[in-house]
């Protein structure tokens, strides 16, 4: 097959970081090509260069055998390159339709300087249908859930009729259902001869959809392999540089006292939710997107109002009306959206890590910066956060490393009950194992963890118990013996068993 794209000896430096060191990357017409690597390996950077979002310091790019010098996003689009960025690029107060056609709104045939909203709308509706969204394209994008916004991004990329479509971790906010829709779309594109670069940390997905895979490590290319001829174990070895023995370090811990009891909690989106979490236990919460899992977490944490019900901690009713009160009661919440809810992006790694427990690094309101640096360095090491130094601004970190900083922040806070909404979103396999290890250690100390995840293997691998939600209600509570993906999905879809 002819190479449609060749990137050769690509170099890219950021202040303090050599992000790409002579990377060569080739894709063929009509293939789905996985791009793998640990957090911070340089995947997104390479893709941004291809999409014209960032300039390169050195190297050549050839498309269809011709040298091109991609001058910007528009040029990349003209060259037939479409991209879904790792971070959502949705403008919340514009309509969904306009978001899809941003920068290339259809014009009237008779008056080319006038936008043809009718056409725009009609085409948007069609595209949305293709990705399984039945929504009015005129509603503002802010009204969509993150997952739906992600589907809009996919619709957008598809609509560009590109020769090369780049998908940088498109599934981090999606559940199986949406992932299936995405895969259908990918296959359809492939049938039309479109090449796809697929960046993901979910290796099962890679196995399912990709033809070849290229692995980066520390900004260098390690190699390209055929997916069919290798196993995910091989890829992991290429990514991490060693064998990774066990992903889920699950060891049963003795279940202790009841740590948290939620009783009859109701709000606009929750209907009479009751459950308990125990010391030494990892409780999983499963559900489809929009089932109210995040809302439940936010409600317990005092970030959203509840209309009725009570939250008991250690057997006593806790009046939690704000995150501050939740924190002081020993609850922590790692939110699902790191950019909007997790990090103060212009602040440094150090400052973000200590943000939820400033008391731990201060006395009578005065900071002890030396102590803070020590704390930050400890967590950077424990979570193996890849950053040039603890005073790097988090905005400059790779997505996965940003996620680790959020985790670090809440691990440092003295929580006894840790709620994690999508714990490993965008986190590489190696680091995942470490995070699971940390959670395991956490419960071993007699604390309790609640994991909300759309990644069912993860949920099954880590939980001692799983509750399933559907439309704001708990529809099932499953013991380890009942853990299987189909059963969970059945309850999650609201079908009774």
């Amino acid at each position, binding site marked *: 097959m002819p190479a449609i794209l060749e990137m050769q000896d690509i170099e890219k430096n950021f202040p303090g970081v050599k992000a790409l060191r002579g990377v060569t990357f080739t894709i063929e017409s009509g293939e789905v090509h996985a791009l793998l690597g640990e957090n911070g390996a340089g995947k997104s950077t390479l893709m941004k260069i291809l999409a014209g*979002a960032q300039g390169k310091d050195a190297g050549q790019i050839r498309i269809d055998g011709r040298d091109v010098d991609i001058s910007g996003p528009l040029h990349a689009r003209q060259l037939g390159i479409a991209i879904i960025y790792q971070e959502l690029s949705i*403008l919340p107060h*514009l*309509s969904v339709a306009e978001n899809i056609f*941003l*920068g290339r709104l259809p014009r009237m045939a008779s008056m080319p300087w006038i936008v043809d909203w009718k056409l725009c709308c009609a085409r948007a509706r069609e595209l949305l249908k293709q990705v399984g969204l039945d929504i009015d394209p005129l509603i503002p994008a802010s*009204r969509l859930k993150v997952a739906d916004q992600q589907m809009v991004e996919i619709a957008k990329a598809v609509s560009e009729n590109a020769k090369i479509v780049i998908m940088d971790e498109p599934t981090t906010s999606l559940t199986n259902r949406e992932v299936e829709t995405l895969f259908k779309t990918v296959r359809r594109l492939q049938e039309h001869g479109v090449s796809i670069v697929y960046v993901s940390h979910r290796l099962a997905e890679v196995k399912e959809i990709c033809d070849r895979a290229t692995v980066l490590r520390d900004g260098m290319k390690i190699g390209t392999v055929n997916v069919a001829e290798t196993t995910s174990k091989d890829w992991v070895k290429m990514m991490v540089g060693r064998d990774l023995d066990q992903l889920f370090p699950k060891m049963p811990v003795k279940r202790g006292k009841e740590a948290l009891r939620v009783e009859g909690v109701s709000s606009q989106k929750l209907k009479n939710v009751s459950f308990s979490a125990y010391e030494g236990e990892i409780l999983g919460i499963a559900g489809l997107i929009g089932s109210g899992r995040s809302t439940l977490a936010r409600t317990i944490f005092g970030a959203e109002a509840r209309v009725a019900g009570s939250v008991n901690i250690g057997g006593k009713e806790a009046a939690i009306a704000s995150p501050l009160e939740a924190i002081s009661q020993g609850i922590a919440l790692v939110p699902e959206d790191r950019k*909007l809810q997790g990090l103060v992006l212009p602040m440094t790694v150090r400052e973000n890590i200590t943000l939820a427990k400033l008391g731990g690094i201060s006395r009578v309101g005065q900071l002890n910066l030396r102590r803070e640096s020590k704390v930050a360095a400890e967590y950077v090491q424990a979570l193996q956060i890849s950053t040039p130094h603890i005073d790097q601004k988090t905005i400059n970190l790779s997505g996965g490393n940003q996620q680790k900083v959020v985790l670090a922040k809440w691990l440092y806070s003295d929580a006894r009950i840790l709620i994690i909404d999508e714990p490993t979103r965008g986190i590489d396999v190696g680091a995942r194992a470490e995070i699971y290890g940390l959670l395991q250690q956490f419960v071993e100390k007699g604390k309790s963890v609640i994991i909300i995840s759309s990644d069912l293997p993860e949920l099954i691998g880590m939980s001692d118990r799983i509750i399933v939600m559907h439309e704001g209600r708990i529809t099932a509570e499953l013991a380890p013996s009942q853990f299987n993906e189909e059963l969970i999905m059945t309850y999650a879809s609201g079908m009774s068993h």
Partner: protein
Amino acid sequence: MQAQSKAAAPLAVPQFNGLRSTLLARGGHQLIIIALIIIVGLAIYWIQPRFLSAYSIDNILRTASIYGIVALGMTLVIITGGIDLSAGSMMALGGALAAGLLGTAFGAANPLSFPPMVAILIALAVAASIGMLNGLAISALGMAPFVVTLGMMTVVRGLTFIFADFTVGSVPGSPITFMDSLFSWLGSGSFGPIPTAAALFLTLAVILSIVLRFTPFGRSIYAIGGDAEIARLAGINVPLVIVGVYALMGMLAGLGGVVQAGRLSSVSPLMGVGYELDIITIVVVGGASLAGGRGTVFGTVLAAILISLIDNGLTMMNVPSFYQYLVKGSVLLAAVILDQWYQRHRAAMATA
């Protein structure tokens, strides 16, 4: 809070589903302003029945139009997430240039003399060019709009003084005073029953709202204000749009100055001192957010009317000057808090 206030915002989404749903979806804020215009109007009328005289309405419309024309430009600027502090100075320069280039000012000493239409066009072109420089500094140098236009505010004021002195010879700082029928028509004349200034303002408002809603340029303005980086990644030529917006702003400020010059038949080089805040106020009361991405022409038009109604009404009711400050401050605050409350309430009802 970010998420919530954004969701509660008047939406920059084109809607075609008829007046009712348009007003409900987007116009909550505008409805409030309309209601305020009516309430304030009635209150003034109740105390001072002569308030509804032709003179008074004419005056309100003229004042609203002069501020409003400049505020239209500021609306675009603010939607991009920028600000233009040089607007007041730019009014003075526009007015002074147009008037000075006529060559007919009392005591005129300069050799320049152009037909009125040409003088106005030159003035607008100069104002637009200076606006372009603002835009360039902002987009090419990546400077904060606040600083660029703050500097430009001083530069342009200086240029206005220099030009006025050049025009009127001996007396430094003198106004440029002239008589010209085109100018007078613009500033004090009428177009049928409507003041010319108001006709001009409304025409411009209609054009700009079409530009904002229906042209790629207009849509880019919203996109840039939403997130300039996302707009860039979508292939929008951000620097070009920014330069265009500030050029338009400059031109509209210049035009506001020309109309003001026509109204007063004279341009003091001090024209428009401090107006930038008034104009920004209009735009923000009109529903635009200084964070960018939000704002409508219609909102600005209504706010311009509301504010000149309040200003005018307080004088009509003979509210003592020092109390006017209290009333104006309170009304402003009450209006925005009410609006905020309503928007939140509405958002809650919408999700219910």
